[in-house]
């Protein structure tokens, strides 16, 4: 059972490293699926809009991850100094 759980965790880890990005992408796909067909835009824009949403989520996550990383580095330096 422990081995199966460990294997399941490894496989899950192949697709999800940052849970917030994975959840945001899944949520955007659901929103796009439900909303885009009802918006008054040319059909050829649906795909590009889907892409733009994913790109925006990726950039937001990178920005947030970078800030978090730097805060952690500065905090550890402050701890060492004190």
């Amino acid at each position: 059972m422990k081995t199966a759980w460990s294997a399941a965790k490894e496989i899950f880890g192949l697709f999800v490293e940052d849970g917030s990005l994975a959840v945001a992408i899944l949520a955007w796909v659901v929103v796009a699926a439900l909303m885009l067909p009802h918006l008054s835009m040319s059909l050829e824009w649906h795909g590009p809009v889907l892409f733009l949403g994913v790109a925006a989520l990726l950039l937001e996550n990178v920005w947030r991850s970078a800030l978090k990383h730097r805060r952690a580095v500065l905090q550890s330096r402050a701890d060492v100094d004190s």
Partner: protein
Amino acid sequence: MGTWSHMWPSVLASFLASSVEFVEALTIVLAVGTVRGWRPALLGTWAGAGFLFMLVLAFGPALQHIPLPVLQLVVGVLLLLFGTRWLRKAILRAAGLVSLHDEDAIYAREKAMLQNEGKARAASLDWVAVTTTFKAVVLEGLEVVFIVIAVGSVGNMLLPATVGAAAAGLAVILLGLGLRKPLSRVPENTLKFAVGILLASFGVFWIGEGLRFSWPGQDLALFGLAAGFLAAAMVGVLLAKRSNHLESAEKPMESVGGRQ
């Protein structure tokens, strides 16, 4: 010409992504073989490969029974999650915020760990070595299988994707046999950057197909998506580097505020 223009993105994505996985597996197999002996290392490797083959035989045909839009949507989502995971990490590495994947360091760490494990008796099989290589081959191999199936199955490109992966495996094995050391000079982050872009592009494309969205230029939209993700990734690297400067600038400001 028309057929090749459809095939090469699948071949390229499969080749590049599989190369990265094969390099990572090779590092572990080399470490085990060097420290614990080649017989258990190769036994674990072959056992892992056999296990993966059985998995593909067992589950592969089931894919044909799944309705195409569902397959496109599910595979697209998984590819997008997989691709953005790699791309995000590659962006942070390129910005210098996460250390680069170091095959030499991994090789040294695995060797040290294996040397610390108790040695098997001379007459018995070294199960530590066998299970270490088995696990490495299965985990990295699962990623290769997923990539081949994801990139190949929804567009009738299974054969080109398989050829790409097989070519990558052969290239890495031959290089490994020739050099007999980790392939640390492979530009792994550049490869992961490219693979992340390709897989994320495929993912978005197949999600769109599964949701019956239109793509300008149809299959050619993949090139546009790849260009879009490349542009987004470059912006991501700049943003991540900028956040580094912002935090550095905040520290002296905080010190001045504190004294007041």
